[in-house]
Structures are given as C-alpha cells and as structure tokens.
C-alpha cells in the first residue's frame, strides 16, 4: 500500500467521524424525549423575554435541519438558515454555549480544565505502556512458569476491577499518608512557586497510580498474547535454530513484531482510557474534564455535558489518527511512495 493513499484514507475517516459526532451531538440534545433546551424554555419560572432570548440564542424559532419550504421556493441560502447551521457556526467560533449551573462560557470552563486531564491521563498512559510492555514480555518469555501465572492472575484481577472501585481502595490504603482528593491543598496559590507545584504533584500520585495499574493490566495481557503469538511464528524457530541467544531472539524478532499490534491496541483502548479518567477524576475530585462531566451529569447541565463529550470524542479521534500515522512510519509494509 502506498503511504499517501493510506494517509488520505485515515485522514478522511477521522474527518468523517468528526462530522458524524457533531451531527449526533446536535440531534441527541434536541430530538430525544427529554429535549433539554425546550424544557428550559417552557419553564414557568422564566419571564417571557428570557424565554425569547434563549429561543433566539439557540435558533429555536427556525427549523431544525433543513427549511423545506425555502428549498421549494429555490431559496438555497434560506433553506440552510436552520438550528443546525447555527449550531455549527457557533461551534466553529468556539462558542459551546453557557453552563446552566455556573453561568460561564462552556469553552472557557473546558480550556481551564483541559490541561489537568491531559497531565493526569498522559502520565498514567505513558507509565502504563512502559510497565505493560515490560511485564507482558516477561510473562511471555517465562510462559508457563510461576512468575507468568502470577503476572497473569494479577493482570486478570485488575482487569476485572471497575476503575472507580480501585480508586476507592487506594484511598482506603493511603488515607492520611497521601492526599486523596482535589488538586492542591487549600490555601496554596500558583504564586507560591515550587511549593505549589510539589503539592500538585503529591495530589497527582494516587489518581495516576490508579490509571497506570489499570491500563497496564490491559496492555500486559495483550502484549503477552501478542508475544506468545509471535513466538509461534516460523521465523522465531529459525532464529532459534540458527543459534541466536534468547535475548537477541526477543529483542530483534519478537519485540519488534509484537509492538505493531500494540500500537493498534493502544489506539483502540484510548476511548476506554477516557472513560477511566472520568471515574478517577470523580473519585479523587481531580478538577479536570472528567470531573466536569460528572458534575454536569449530576446537575443536568446539558451545555457542559455536550461540550465535554465533544471535546473527549474529538481528542480520541485525533489520538487515533496520530496512532495511524505512527503506524505508517513504523510498519515497513506501508511503503513510503
């Protein structure tokens, strides 16, 4: 396969996915029985002016999808003057609406919190990949030994555990020794410099640990079976037959070939990663996007819910695209022209 064809296909898919997500996000919040915007508009506690303002804001006086009447009149621009185009236009301007509960711009809320989630998930993910690959290699190398069984059982046990419950257990174990909630000890401010950041680091330990252990268990199981699968290939037998040492067999033949499926798997589990972040941030009150989503669910704050979902979906789509591009560079079967 030519690399440029491959890239165009992957970018096209990511773009199409993005479009579908935006359309879905628009319709879900308008068509399902509990249509939130309409519920607010018909709230008897609002004045008539406020209702009209919201209606105009969301374009509720316009048709939802396409103005069929205008279309039959041949008025093409008029046909597309609808709620959906208003939504897309606002989206492109970065306007995600106003939070029901805090009265602040959703995009502002997201921007304020995004980096905290990026730090937490990024750290957890990187550590999990490193540990997952190492443990998976060791388990596959000593396949059938007691060490392998131990690693496998630990992996299966953590795999069976819901993320939030693992977080709760860590809270019970480390209560009093490490901070178990929030991002920083109340009272400290960013102006305090080093002391502030050290404190944030301490608050990061438990949430990161939760994510690392849980993701690593997933990766180690996949890495193990991937290496075991590669070890059954004929070229490994050849490598062994020609007298290569175990270490060289693993390093030069097994590792490289089992890493490619790992990249795909890591990309595929990114969606799951994001779900884990919501739970961990909820349990440890880490004020990131996940916690914001949890609070939005509790308060039925639909604009925030819509915004966080969009941001999470877009990040996962982008990360997947990145993994695909990385794959193109690493896999020699995707030819560079």
């Amino acid at each position, binding site marked *: 396969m030519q690399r440029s064809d491959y890239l165009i296909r992957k970018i096209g898919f990511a773009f199409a996915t993005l479009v579908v997500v935006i359309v879905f996000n628009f319709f879900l919040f308008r068509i399902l029985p509990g249509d939130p915007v309409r519920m607010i508009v018909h709230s008897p506690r609002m004045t008539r002016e406020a209702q009209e303002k919201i209606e105009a804001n969301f374009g509720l006086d316009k048709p939802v999808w396409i103005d069929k009447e205008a279309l039959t009149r041949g008025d093409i621009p008029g046909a597309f003057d609808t709620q959906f185009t208003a939504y897309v236009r606002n989206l492109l301007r970065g306007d995600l609406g106003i939070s029901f509960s805090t009265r602040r711009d959703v995009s502002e809320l997201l921007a304020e919190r995004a980096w905290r989630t990026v730090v937490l998930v990024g750290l957890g993910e990187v550590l999990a990949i490193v540990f997952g690959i190492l443990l998976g290699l060791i388990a596959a190398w000593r396949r059938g030994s007691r060490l392998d069984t131990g690693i496998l059982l630990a992996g299966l046990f953590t795999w069976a555990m819901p993320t939030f419950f693992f977080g709760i257990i860590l809270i019970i174990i480390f209560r009093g020794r490490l901070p178990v909630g929030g991002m920083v000890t109340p009272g400290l401010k960013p102006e305090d410099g080093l002391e502030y950041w050290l404190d944030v680091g301490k608050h990061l330990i438990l949430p990161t640990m939760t994510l690392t252990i849980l993701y690593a268990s997933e990766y180690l199981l996949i890495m193990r079976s991937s290496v*075991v*699968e590669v070890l059954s290939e004929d070229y490994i037998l050849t490598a062994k037959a020609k007298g290569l040492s175990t270490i060289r067999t693993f390093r030069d033949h097994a590792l490289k070939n089992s890493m490619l499926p790992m990249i795909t798997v890591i990309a595929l589990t990114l969606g799951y990663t994001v779900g884990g972040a919501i*739970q961990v941030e909820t349990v440890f009150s880490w004020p990131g996007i996940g916690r914001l989503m949890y609070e939005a669910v509790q308060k039925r704050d639909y604009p925030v819910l819509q915004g966080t979902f969009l941001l999470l979906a877009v990040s996962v789509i982008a990360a997947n695209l990145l993994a695909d591009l990385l794959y193109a560079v690493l896999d020699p079967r995707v030819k560079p022209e």
Partner: protein
Amino acid sequence: MQRFKQVWGVFRKKPMAIVGVVMLSIAVFVAVFAPWLAPYDPYERVEIEIEDILAPPDPEHLLGRDDAGKDVLSLLIYGARISLVVGFTASFFSMFIGTTVGLTAGYFGGRIGNGLMRFTDFLMVIPDLPLMLVIISVWGRGLWKIVLVISLLYWTYTARLVRSQVLSTKERQFVLRARALGASNWRNILRHILPMVVPLIIAQAVLDISASIIAESSLSFLGLGDPTLVSWGMMLNFAFERAISRMAWWFFLPPGFAIVWVSLSIILIGNALEEIVNPRLKTHHLFDPRRMVSLSPTPKEQQPTEPVLETN
C-alpha cells in the same frame, strides 16, 4: 456438537477455568435464590433509629447497615440479580448484533459490507463511557435503557472477529464445494460458516458479559443507575458520597468485591475459552519456552557461535 465436546474436554482440564465456573455458579445461585437467602427485604420500608445509620456489623446484620439503616447483606444479595441480568442480556444482544453485522459484512462484502465495517470502526473510535453518560442523562435513567445502550455500543469487537473469520472460512474447500453444488446463501451461512464461527463468538460474548457488568456499575456509580433498583454500582455511589469519610468499610467493600468476583469469574472462563478456540494462540510444538529460559545463562565456552546465515 462434536466440536463442543472437544472444547469441553480441553476446558475442564484448565484449573483457572474451573475456578471461574465455580465462582460464577455461586453468584448465579445467590441471584436466583435471593429472596430465600437474604435475611431482610431491601425494598421494604424500615423504621430506624439514628444509631442504625451506618451501624457496623453485628450478629443481626452481618455486614452492618447502610446510610438508610438497611441491611447491607440483603442489598448485596439482591444486587447480584441486577448485575447478572444486565451482563447476560446486554452481552446476548450485542452478540446478536455483532454476529449479524459480521456475517453480512464478511459473506456478502461489497458496498454494504464496507459500509457496515466503516460504521463499526466509527463506533469503536467513540469513547463509550462518555457516550453512555450523555445518552442516559438525556434519555432518562432505567435498567432496560442501560441494557440497550450497552448492547448497542459493545457489539463492535464481535462484528470484526466474525467478519475476519467468515472471510477466511468462505474460501475453504467445503464451502466452495457446497456453493458449486448450488447451496443457497442461507444454507451456506447456517450450515457451513456459522458452525465454524460460533466457538469464537461465544468466547467473545462471555468476555462481553464482564464488560457489560463493569459498564453498568460505572454508570450507576456515576449516578445514572436505575433509581428504582439498588445495584452494586449504586451502593458504591451511596457509600462513596455518604460513608467514605466515616470509613464504613462494611458498606463500600462488599459491593465492590462482589463486582470483582462476578467479572473475574467470567473473565477466567472467557479467557480459557478463547485460548481453546482461537487457533492463533497456540504455539509451535517445537517451541518450548522453558527450554529458551534454561538456555539463557549459557556458560562462556558453550556460547553458540555467531550464525552464518543472517536472515532478515
């Protein structure tokens, strides 16, 4: 049938699989006989004193009481029903959807097949927990809504698995021969292709049960469980919101470990099944990993010479 006997023959020689079956049987037994096993009815209104709230375990309430003065053990026993019902039904539906999509895409291929696979890829990219959160909070809370949402999102792996298996099976001699003899598509799929794919589907469906149980508990923990039922996830939600500061371990440890118990039992069974039915996980009979290990600390004088052939 022959194949199932074979699978069972290998299966029962795996200790981990047997442990899984025993653990799951216990959970199913508890769920089925909940009204007889539970000391109290958790859905009954109770009159309580202030000291009954989060009361620690005593002989009358073996796992203490929750924040509403109810017996935790009884809640736990009834909770098994919800987890198992959600797990089994959601995984059954997703197995059904996944198999249909995979068979159609694999057997017929073409534009429809491609379209179906693009849609599958699309669903795989969307993060599922956020999507479930959004759908349930807009649509409203309810057990069957949760089951439906999980089954509509969790069929993608099955679909891919079935498709790739069908693609290789449909080129095999006996299928081609059947087709040459004029067998209809339906007959071909039902008689020749499906039996080859079924073991793989079942192994995947078993693993999906545990994924569905964990998904339900996460949704309930995040406050989107069915408000009329008390599931393990919801117990953990109450416990986390109201009892963690008082360290009422009898309230939050049992439901958590109950979830782990059930999903671990299913994972053990599913993993063993997968190892048996997935031919790619078998190693070459000449490759003995233990020999590789014992070779590594080779004494200096016996070090193998550099290979003459450098194959790459």
